[in-house]
């Protein structure tokens, strides 16, 4: 779950998201009726927190007349910064789906469960994400 958050929101926000996810999960647990998909359930909570965080961060962003020259990798530096920066730049559904697939290693049925979509849509989101990354990430 923490890895999923680092991949989708970056290091700095991942820790906050992680705390919030667990607190939200603890809060919601008594209402959980079916505990057979706990992993998918906790990732459902996590991906909602990730989306909330990204929205809040975008709201906080101060519009500048001129963009400062900061190398992208310096903004969110982790192990493989470039790759994750491309992932984070994907449209939300693609970003979540591809991270659930490659970081959380979920089956398409579980990705569908987490994202509340059909399995077909889950497959398509992952496929679109990979297609886009293939064109955007420099080959080396």
């Amino acid at each position, binding site marked *: 779950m923490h890895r999923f958050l680092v991949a989708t929101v970056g290091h700095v926000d991942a820790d906050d998201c992680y*705390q919030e996810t667990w*607190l939200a999960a603890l809060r919601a*647990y008594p209402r959980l009726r079916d505990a057979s998909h706990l992993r998918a359930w906790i990732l459902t909570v996590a991906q909602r927190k990730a989306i909330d965080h990204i929205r809040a961060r975008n709201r906080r962003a101060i519009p500048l007349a001129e963009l400062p020259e900061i190398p992208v990798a310096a903004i969110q530096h*982790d192990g493989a910064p470039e790759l994750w920066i491309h992932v984070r730049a994907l449209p939300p559904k693609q970003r979540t789906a591809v991270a659930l697939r490659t970081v959380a290693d979920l089956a398409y049925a579980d990705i569908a469960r987490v994202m509340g979509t059909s399995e077909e849509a889950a497959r398509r989101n992952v496929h679109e994400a990979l297609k886009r990354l*293939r064109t955007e990430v420099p*080959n080396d």
Partner: protein
Amino acid sequence: MTDAIENALRRAAAALDADSPPDLDTEAAEAASLVDVAYARHDTPVGALILAATPRGLVRLAFADDDDSVEATLTQLARRVSPRVLAAPRRLDNARRELDEYFAGTRERFELAIDWRLTQGFGRRILRSTARIPYGSVSSYAQVAAAAGSPRGFRAAGNALGHNPLPIVVPCHRVLHAGGGLGGYTGGVERKLTLLAIERGSSPDAGPTRAGP
């Protein structure tokens, strides 16, 4: 249907493993009343213990000999009480203090609230009657069974004591075989001897002395 980019993502994801997740903010969880079972580790002369409490009281005490036994105890709590189990040592300050006093020989009676929910039926009656055996004295499985209203249930009594969820605090170590044998102990008979020796105010090597019939 794996390709280069997917493989690269999986490799990069594996590298994220090096970043361990932060510790959970248990204070925030506690403040919001989200903790059903608080637990703490505590070192004692009979080894490390794991203590767990619900809002009703102390619910579990177990010997924490290794990671596996700690894991087993926490899993039991998650399954049988609630999965909202968190390390929250402050909720166990009273229990830890009373245990320290007990091991220092300055406390003969625990005054902790007990949550008996991990016991039931005859087993609970056995443990409740065991809890009344005074400090420094011993009883037999048959006596404990009789006190629980079932004089012939000594075998079942032995079984209930073997599954005591609150050793030391519910002093199953004070129950011995009628013939003078030490009987068993979940944490090992060494510990049973040590606890009995502490209660006699002597070293553990002296062997048990029997009080009562």
